[in-house]
């Protein structure tokens, strides 16, 4: 198929337009994942280790939020950042920053929920020993997060995968503006609808490669974790 041949050509010769789109996609999704980690890991650990009224309900809600539809997140962030909206003053709509914000909202529940599960499971294992060694509260959290680091990395990779593959949220808050807010997924959507397949297919190849790489990394992280988990 001619579409595929010229797609491969674009990918292999490092077509600058294609790689600019790839770069933006990675920057947006990686940034969102980092923010999600900064918020989600401590939050998940906190919920895992403290008792409070309504804890069960919070956990159920947190798990449910993992399945937030991206378009719904996009719409909510759009309305918030719109110049007629509460944060309109910041002028963030239709910028890459807005895309980072939307994807952070999408990914944080994933990171938080998976962290909560991981830390709680490990705490059940470690509780007696850490208590017997008189380990203080802060140190406990650090120990659990460190010893569970491979599972947490897997959680981050899951979050990143979600961000990199979604199109609904970023197309709404980013506006899919040429040269500014076009990512792999939004461009694939656009070019396909225009009937311009080579670029779409080329980006699809890159995107699938990235997804496979993420999964390979996650597999590697799991194996590394097993080395210590025995």
């Amino acid at each position, binding site marked *: 198929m001619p579409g595929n041949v010229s797609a491969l050509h674009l990918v292999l010769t490092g077509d600058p337009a294609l790689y600019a789109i790839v*770069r933006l996609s*990675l*920057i947006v999704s*990686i*940034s969102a994942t*980092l*923010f999600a980690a900064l918020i989600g890991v401590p939050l998940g650990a906190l919920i895992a280790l403290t008792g409070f009224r309504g804890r069960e309900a919070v956990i159920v809600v947190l798990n449910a939020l993992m399945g937030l539809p991206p378009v719904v997140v996009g719409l909510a962030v759009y309305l918030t950042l*719109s*110049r*007629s909206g509460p944060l*309109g*003053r*910041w*002028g*963030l*709509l*239709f*910028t*890459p*920053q807005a895309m*980072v*914000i939307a994807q952070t909202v999408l990914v944080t529940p994933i990171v938080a929920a998976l962290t909560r599960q991981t830390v709680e499971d490990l705490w059940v294992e470690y509780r007696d020993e850490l208590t017997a060694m008189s380990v203080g509260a802060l140190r406990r959290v650090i120990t659990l997060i460190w010893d569970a680091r491979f599972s947490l990395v897997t959680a981050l990779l899951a979050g990143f995968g979600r961000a990199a593959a979604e199109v609904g949220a970023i197309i709404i808050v980013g*506006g*899919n*503006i*040429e*040269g*500014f807010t076009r990512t792999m997924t939004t461009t694939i959507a656009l070019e396909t*609808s*225009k*009937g*311009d*397949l080579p670029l779409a297919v080329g980006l699809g190849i890159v995107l699938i490669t990235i997804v496979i790489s993420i999964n390979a990394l996650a597999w590697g992280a799991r194996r590394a974790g097993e080395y210590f988990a025995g």
Partner: protein
Amino acid sequence: MHTSRTLIAAIAFSVTALVPGGAQEDKSIVLASTTSTQDSGLFEYLLPIVRQKTGITVKVLALGTGQALDTGRRGDADVVFVHAKPEELKFVAQGESLKRYPVMYNDFVLIGPKSDPAGIRGMKDIGKALQAIKNKRASFVSRGDRSGTHIAELDLWRGAGVDIDKDKGAWYKSIGQGMGAALNTAGAAEAYVLSDRATWIHFKNKGDLQIVVEGDKRMFNQYGVMLVNPGKHPNVRKELGQRFIDYLVSPDGQKDIANYKIGGEQLFHPNADDIGA
């Protein structure tokens, strides 16, 4: 190495990500326009020229006409550039813009499959052609998205004496998407579809489709540009927006528009000086 540079960029970027005001260009405007205008390739050609001549970076939001106007109403765009005169006049009447400027026109063409089930190829009367399509229940794809093209299509059905809301059936496929998608669908379903000429020429997936009816005066498509009312939305970049509009309607800008050609064929005809347009 590429990956570490991307990672560092990601981290540095993250730091700036939530600074209010963000990393927006200083001399840029947000232009809400239509998908058919973008699909025609006009912006790809024109915006670098705009940047060179005025220093303004134009960020294009390609939406349906209805969405574009709504974006202007919310103040999320600085300039609106669509092709649905009644809607534009309403926009001004509602105070969402202070003035509408005509810019250019192109025309619509009726596209159909080589098999031509309604037998209308070469007809000069669009009304009669549409009647034939309805009578033969030939497949027809509608954009269905409140876009300028969609509104023009509805006008043409009305002009042909067809009450499309009542008379439509399984043969009438309303897809709610842009011009490119509509053409793709028509090609796949062997259906007729109304398209603007510019998008049609620019479209890369023609397959079995071809122009079956063109040239009827009722198929002309007028474009207008409006600055979003800064009185209503103080954040609107009114100086840059106005400067962009001034360029579009200036003799220089009009000549640049006329010079946009695909395969030697001119796509848009400038008519900013036509007061009634």
